[in-house]
């Protein structure tokens, strides 16, 4: 076992750990872009996770699992939206209530399927790594090998199939670290790019940002403010639900109460850390994920772990220190953007 393999495995673990953070961040980012701070991420993740996981166990159907995760968390977000948009309740209190409510609901629902595992067919789907080099290249090579055998082309028809092995150490590192992930991971990253395009290059994205920035102006310009807020709060909740589903369904393969273990709170910090920007969220989620687990690896190298900088208790603080640093450096600077201006405050049309 060499160092490069250990580091590559660490990267792979960190990416797997970060996926739910990234999806949750993308969801919360949408909500906050609409001017609403939803502290109920943890609750929505648990609601989505439990609904989706229970559906998966009961039906063995991935599509239904995804659907129920989205519906479960979307329902939580809908409650929040009714409270904060229509009833103009305090956003912080509503979000906290949603966390408690969601956790209770999820743990009750989850307790109906104790000691179960993700159904084989769904687990197998996520064990397939579409970009994994050896597997993919061999698949393509053997396909052509079969064809050439069938067509009796050249001498290859007689030769036995030679499977491909990675010999290049750099390629092997990249393969283990970044390419051996399931399809969920790559689709999530793709989603971050699509969301960036949507937010900054489309009219609808502009409308969303406007609502979050200056709700009164958006209203005056004829945008359906309430509808937009509802739409993105619910869409954001649905993404949080998928984030919650990833943990029991794919990462752990089993349900346990409070399985998200505080990831929803990390997400709230992450959104600030990445300055409400989807592409930055990819890097931000990875940094937070990696810092959350790097202490585990460092413990195994005593030369490092004895240094105070790498102390296992201090390591887990770094994501939050980074967030505070970002806050400090963006505060007080005139040009620096400090997030959607309308965030946290209810919009009263009459008070324009």
């Amino acid at each position: 076992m060499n160092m490069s393999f250990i580091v590559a495995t660490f990267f792979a673990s960190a990416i797997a750990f970060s996926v739910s953070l990234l999806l949750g961040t993308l969801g919360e980012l949408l909500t906050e872009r609409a001017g609403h701070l939803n502290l109920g991420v943890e609750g929505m993740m648990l609601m989505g996770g439990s609904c989706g996981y229970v559906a998966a166990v009961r039906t063995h159907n991935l599509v239904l699992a995804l659907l129920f995760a989205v519906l479960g968390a979307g329902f939580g977000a809908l409650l929040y939206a009714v409270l904060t948009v229509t009833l103009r309740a305090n956003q912080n209190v509503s979000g906290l209530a949603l966390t408690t409510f969601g956790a209770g609901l999820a743990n009750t629902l989850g307790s109906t399927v104790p000691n179960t595992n993700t159904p084989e067919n769904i687990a197998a789907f996520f064990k397939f790594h579409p970009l994994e080099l050896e597997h993919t290249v061999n698949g393509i090579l053997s396909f052509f090998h079969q064809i050439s055998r069938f067509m009796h082309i050249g001498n290859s028809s007689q030769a036995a199939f030679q499977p491909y092995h990675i010999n290049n150490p750099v390629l092997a590192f990249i393969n283990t670290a970044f390419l051996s992930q399931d399809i969920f991971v790559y689709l999530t990253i793709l989603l971050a790019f699509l969301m960036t395009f949507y937010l900054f290059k489309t009219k609808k994205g502009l409308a969303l940002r406007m609502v979050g920035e200056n709700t009164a102006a958006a209203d005056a310009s004829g945008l359906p403010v309430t509808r937009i807020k509802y739409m993105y709060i619910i869409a954001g909740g649905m993404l949080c639900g998928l984030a919650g589903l990833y943990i029991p369904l794919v990462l752990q393969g089993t349900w346990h109460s409070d399985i998200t273990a505080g990831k929803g709170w990390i997400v709230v910090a992450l959104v600030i850390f990445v300055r409400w920007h989807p592409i930055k969220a990819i890097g931000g989620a990875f940094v937070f994920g990696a810092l959350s687990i790097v202490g585990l690896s460092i413990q195994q190298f005593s030369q490092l772990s004895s240094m105070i900088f790498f102390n296992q208790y201090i390591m887990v603080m770094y994501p939050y220190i980074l967030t505070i640093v970002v806050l400090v450096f963006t505060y007080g600077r005139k040009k620096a953007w400090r997030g959607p201006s309308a965030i946290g405050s209810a919009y009263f049309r009459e008070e324009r």
Partner: protein
Amino acid sequence: MRKILAMVMTCILVAGTVSIAGCSSSSKETTAAGTDTVLKVGVIYISPKDDGGYSQAHAEGIAQAVAALGDKIKVFELENVNDTDAAATTSAIDNLVNEGCTLIFTTSYGYMQATADAATKYPNVKFCHCSGYTRNDTNLDTYFGQIESARYLAGIVAGLTTKTDKLGYVAAFPIPECIRGINAYTLGARSVNPNATVTVVWTNTWFDMDVEKAAAESLLSQGIDVMAQHQDSPAAINAAAAAGAFAVGYDLTYAGAPKAYLTAPLWNWGTYYTYKIQQVLDGQWKIENYWGGMKEGVVKLDTLSSLVSAEASAAVAKVQDTVVSEGNAFVFAGPIKDQSGTVKVAEGSSLSYDDQMGMSWFVEGVVGEIPAP
């Protein structure tokens, strides 16, 4: 319209919360007996009774006691009582006393102070606190078990299963309970395979499945091929299974990873609960520091799975009787060296109870550090 909506929303939230609270934290009667002469027994758990781990082991023990003692007792159980929240613990105990419970088991270490306070407040109620060290002369005692004896046997299985001689151990906190377990496991493994080492990673959480999984993966990437854990979730076992390695469980039998699961040190609390409740029923209540082992049946090693080699089964069988009869005194019998090679337990002696309870050093063969508290 808005008022109606507000009413509906409030109703949904309140109804939801109440129904959930009703499901997760209400006291449930386990027997149907209702005469005044029955002994009312209260139990509080840190997590749900079906958590697949620590609390489930206790709850199954209580169920065994109920099955054994029948309608002589009536059990009230409270789940999900946060052990870091003294107010929650106190109110849970108050509720049980109000129900008429005169014997109360508090099953998590963190309940210690609240239990001690309650023992002073309710002198007529008897309290038994699991895994703590606070006792009084009248109505508060403690209980725990020599799980290390079973860990030692599990270590023998691991030591003879590994091909790389590298064992891994995902552990929650650097506290004596975990350190004892790691040491016993290492001593067991090295008793049959002197080349074996046990690499330890602290997760600093009893329950965070993603962190536990990442900890196991970091060990597996170094060529570790048998994983053990002292956590409340099976995440480390699953990670080992995914990497094609073997795993030793904890608390309860685990059926989720049949291609990895070797065995597990298990709690069998029914023996203790039946014994202690019977003691009270007989009017023989006495303060004790109960620390049963395999001999009493409170602790056992799970049936070895079909993955365990004949050689390993034979090695376990060879010492099993001695371990069962002598318990931890055998496991921690000298000579035992620490990581630096210094003899900590001399030949012919054995680590005392107090030294085991306060263990803060690793035996030779453990790779890892105990961070300064």
